[in-house]
């Protein structure tokens, strides 16, 4: 394993969620079942280390739905590589994260 990051299980979960198309903070929480106080610092750290990149949701979409634009997270190639490592290590990862983003309005997971 490359010594690049202290890759915890939670971090791996977040990466997995990002990789599967969950792009927003609350959605990632839903997908992983992790609390916000865990998910957000992980997102910040992944951002800092270049494993993901963040932008803002398109203004048009937000406007259509009458709410402010959300922050949009996207996994990078480095992040995918790291995730591949992590999958080696945490075999259960595959089952732990939802496969596709749920349609909006579904019942949230336990926070």
């Amino acid at each position, binding site marked *: 394993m490359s010594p690049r990051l202290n890759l915890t299980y939670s971090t791996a979960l977040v990466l997995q969620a990002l990789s599967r198309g969950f792009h927003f903070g609350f959605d990632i*929480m839903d997908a992983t079942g992790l609390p916000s106080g865990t998910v*957000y610092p992980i997102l910040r750290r992944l951002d800092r280390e270049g494993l993901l990149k963040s932008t803002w949701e398109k203004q048009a979409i937000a406007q259509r739905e009458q709410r402010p634009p959300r922050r949009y997270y996207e996994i990078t190639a480095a992040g995918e590589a790291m995730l591949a490592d992590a999958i080696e290590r945490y075999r259960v990862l595959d089952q732990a994260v939802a496969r596709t983003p749920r349609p909006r309005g579904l019942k949230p997971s336990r926070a």
Partner: protein
Amino acid sequence: MRQGSGRSPLALTLTLALVRLFSAVVPRVSRADWRAEWEAEVRYRWTSLNAGQHPDWRTRMDLVRRALGALPDAAWIRRQFTADADLVHDLKHGIRMLAKAPSFTLSAVFILSIGIGGTVAIVALLDTLFFRPLPYYQSDRIVTIWQRQAAQPTEREDVAPADFLDWRDRARSFSSIAAMIPYSRDYTGGSEPEVLFGAQVTEGFFDAIGMPPLIGRAFLPEEHVTGGRRVVVISHAFWQSRFAGDPGAVNRTISMDDEIWTIVGVLPKAFEPQLLLRPGGLSVWTPKVIQDHEKRIRASAWWNVVARLAPGVTMEQAQAEMNTISAALAREYPRTHESRSAVLVPMREHLMGGVSLPLLLMLAAVVLILGIGCANVASLLLARGMERSREFAVRAALGAGRFRLVRQLVAESLLLSLIAAVGGVGLAYWTLGVIVSLAPAGLLRLQESTIDGRIILFAASLTAAIAVAFGLIPALQFSKRTNDLLRERQADGIGGTLRRGLVVSEVAIALVLLVGAGLLVRSFGRLLAVDPGFNPTNVVMAQVFASDRQVTPDRLRNFFNATIDRMRALPGAEAAGAVSAMPFALSNINIRSNLEIVGRPAVKPGEQRVAYVTIATPGYFTAMAIPLREGRFIEGRDSETAPRVVVISDALRRLEWPNETPVGRRIRVQWQGKPVEAEVIGVVAQIRHESLDTAARAEVFFPFAQMPFGSMTYVVRGSGDTTSLIDSVKRQVWSVDSMQSVYDTGSVERLVRASLVRQRFSMTMLSAFALVALILCASGIYGIISFTTAQRTREIGLRMALGADGPTIRRMVLREGSIVIALGLLFGLVAALAGSRFLQKLLFEVRPGDPLTIAVVCVLLGAVGVAACYVPARRATRVDPLVALRVD
């Protein structure tokens, strides 16, 4: 924007309030973004909840709970921000690293302390001289004015009375211009008759200086005229010693020169050490009454002139006006003023005297030492960095950016420098004390040097600059090559060039300092070898000013004959005499006159020979052991009634009679306004007057009996202990006249030694600095070669395994060290040759590029350098090939 469902706004409001509250934790730069992100998520969730129907209370509580998670998020961002923005983390890490290597830390701190301490001390001295305001009102408007002869454009001379009066009448550039005339008075109010040194000042003197008396008043115009009241302004020190600082001293009277004087003012303390560089300062200031005959004195010059520039007038304008006035005077008085001009010198420059050059030299020296120290510490850091290369490589691999690593190194060097700065400022206090105590007494303002806030600020900036420079050099070196470091594991090559460069620069800098010190030492040696023209050993002197009490020529003759006879009869006295211009004495009567040689065609005005006219008694030459070159000394037979005779100095003979004997020729000089003609009877050796490095002067000695004079210096040669002789000499004066004051008594030998104080000071200081530089340089070479050799353990082991023996290895290490040292010597030589010409002014009979000095210094430094390489070279031969090859 929709505010969400009206059914349950409480949960939304609460959630948003929490987000807003927690946003305070987030650093300002990212706060707006952070809030936008959280609010967007909350509103999005709220909208979704309301789209699906009936969000139950658990769902709403879930939203609030998620908002609570914003706090750890905000805190995490804040922590990261703090770690990024502050050096706190780096400093903590730095402290741990420094504590782990105490010997490294101690040596680095020690070396830097020396550099910082020295620099700060010298800067404190320079600050006092150049930047600290003088205690006078608008002191940058005060100028001193001097006479200058075209033949000696670098010399400043005192001013002739008539010239001062003309300047005062004609110049418009000054709001006030005044003269100060050194004047001592006999004070008979104490236990022994003593002399109070003081000055007579013309009207407006205290205005020109810009410092009124502390109590009382300055002089009134009517006190500057004949018949005015006898008033005196006393110095602070005199006030303290005689009146115990009693404010009632004003209006009290003191007896001076058998007259009663009323004290009208007391000067502030700050007034004292600033004017007239006489140890002990001046005690009494009296108003000058200009005498009629003084309005005609143009040849003799002994007045000091000070002026205050009028508002709006610049220094250049004032100088230009003085040039015009000088030109006019030259037309009016071609005989005396043909080549005379007036030169303005700002007060500050005047007070600095000749000290700025030695001090600037010392500044250069300490900066160079600081340079060597920096090179040493940089090499220490390099070596340590090498040991820590794995640490850096791992940190880089873990994602620490280059900037991050550089910052860490800078933080460590900042720590080092900070500790060193504390030590350095302490050292600076000490150094300052030592320098001030070594400094010549004339450098009065130096005593006021202190390390104040501004100096501390300077020390801090210096430290910061050093820290950044240090951290950066090795840091850039490493961070650039972290990948290589990681791969190679042992980084042999890295920093090799840099290390060699450091040795080269250390050697070069040390050479510059050593050459400077060597030149000064040699120059001092030459100075000590100068023959002053007399033998000062076992000679004592005592000065008297007898004219006030012995008012006729006959009484003067009787007084001096009687006192000298008694002195000669003293037990232990071998010879006694008196002279009007005593070599090396602090106060002296130097009278100059045009000199004509009878029988030679008249010379054009301005080209006449000028000679010093000195009066001597017969015993003077034997008491001083002045060698006779030709003819005879003044003798007892050269009495008042005998034909007028004169003895001339060898310097004058060389100028006027280079190839013939002057004995029997006749010369003519001006004496007290009248021409005096005399026959040359002898030639005496060249006598140095002010100092050993000023040329012997053209001088003529007339017999005291034929030209009696009131201001004389007794010289008595003793056979043994001279301390008791001084007291006996004074007693002989008082046995003839109990009221005659005696001043400036002491050993002539000490006087001559004291004249070398400036040279001794420069030499001592620069030698001390050069020694420090040599030690630092040697330890630097030792450290770097040791480290380099240690780095090459494996290579050396391999060589030994392949058959190289100890001496071969030793030669290899020594050869490589020597090459670097030789390179340093070469660069240093170039720099020393270029730099040593700044020493020119301080050197006596030694050229700046003196080959002998440079050769000796090169050999010394080279030897020390090679010796410093020798220990690591020996150690290298002890490498066990097996162990070495197993390394890593």
